């Protein structure tokens, strides 16, 4: 179970990404972070805190549940059905630069669903994407604008992201999947 990123490394990576965001967007004006549930949300909150330190400004942060937007091809009969949680975006996204935040980018289908959901909320100016880990194997033309770490993986492997806010500790590991998987 190789550990790809420990707590310290995650912290440094998020700091680096925050700086990249500020640089790319020339500040944080009109910016809003939207974390994709579940683990995208604490990552978004951490980024918001770092951005506040860097730019001296509060950055609006929201949480997006994409369960209702999943597509047919996301069915792979594994594990219990995720429970639909509330989406909380307590600000208007019209005309804003939205930064979607997720923990792992894999096939790209979650991000596609998140884009569909966001469009139902309004008309953002731009949408950018932050991921902590990009593990390859895209099935859709989706690209992350900010990547914490690129980790080439095989389909028999999986990335586990654990965050203190949810799992009690910070850790990113690469594991084998038990049983046969395509």
């Amino acid at each position, binding site marked *: 179970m190789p550990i790809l990123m420990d707590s310290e490394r995650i912290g440094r990576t998020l700091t680096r990404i925050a700086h990249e965001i500020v640089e790319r967007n020339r500040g944080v004006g009109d910016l809003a972070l939207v974390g994709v549930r579940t683990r995208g949300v604490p990552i978004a909150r951490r980024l918001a805190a770092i951005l506040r330190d860097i730019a001296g400004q509060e950055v609006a942060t929201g949480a997006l549940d994409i369960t209702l937007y999943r597509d047919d091809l996301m069915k792979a009969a*594994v594990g219990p*059905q995720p429970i639909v949680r509330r989406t909380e975006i307590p600000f208007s996204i019209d005309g804003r630069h939205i930064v979607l935040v997720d923990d792992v980018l894999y096939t790209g289908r979650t991000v596609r669903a998140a884009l569909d959901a966001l469009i139902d909320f309004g008309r953002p100016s731009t949408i950018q994407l932050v991921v902590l880990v990009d593990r390859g194997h895209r099935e859709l033309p989706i690209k992350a604008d900010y990547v914490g770490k690129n980790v080439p993986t095989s389909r028999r492997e999986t990335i586990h992201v654990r965050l203190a806010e949810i799992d009690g500790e910070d850790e990113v590991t690469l594991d084998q999947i038990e049983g046969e998987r395509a």
Partner: protein
Amino acid sequence: MSDTAARLRGKDLLGIADLTASEITLILDTAEAMKEVSSRPIKKVPALRGKTVINLFYEPSTRTRTSFEVAEKRLSADTLNIAIGTSSVVKGETLIDTALNLEAMSPDIIVLRHASSGACHLLARTCKAGIVNAGDGMHEHPTQGLLDAFTIRERKGRLQGLKVAIVGDLLHSRVFRSNIYLLTKMGAEVWVCGPPTLMPAGIELVGVHATTRVEEAVEGADAIMMLRIQLERMQGGYFPSLREYFQVFGMTPERVKLAKPDAIIMHPGPMNRGVEIASEVADGPASVILDQVANGVAVRMAVLYLLAGGGEHEAVA
């Protein structure tokens, strides 16, 4: 995260009697997320896109049918409303034949309201489509029970340990049955009240307190639920007059005062003002009757989603 079921067993929702406490919690939690959808500018999610839902109503109903239709459309399902007039029944097509004919068009869900208890069970055994009970005879009205529970939970934060009083024509009410099954399963203390002529046999065996004194039922209650007195019951000789019914059992402001100060007043509708409930109570600050209606859409969205929308999912990005 609460200890909840991950999905509903089976393809149907025939009654609260068949649900576990865990499944009830799942539905209520999902309904919370669905309620948020209804507050967006675009009140639509694609969760049931491409699914067909048929609303097959053998009894007239604007309220419930509209609620289901809105719920189905908000989930992007294709909906069909079929209202069977009494003439179709007289013409002799059986319920099973009607359903099998509809099934030939591959609906994913049939929402059935029917005058006979057990009609939904009959269809569930016969059809491949999932059957949602929108009210069968005197038996159950599970989505009403769920939206009532959702409303109580929304206002009080929980169901366990609350005192809930239900007053009215208990004998003939499917809303009553669904509610007592649900509330007892979730650990509420349930008091039921009505004239002895309208009290179902064996009611104490369900685990509720039964009384013919409405004051005893509502004392210290957290929630008071009034049931509709169907005006035709008077012809059935169950009680002498509506006037006397209101005098003995009607929910008046004086009786409401016996409950907790923050008690909520509920009614599944439609109301008979001045029969089971005084207007001041129905329109007063404690009344959550309109919330019940709003919550009905969210709860029905949750039920439809859990039966037809989910399916297997990867928890993978």
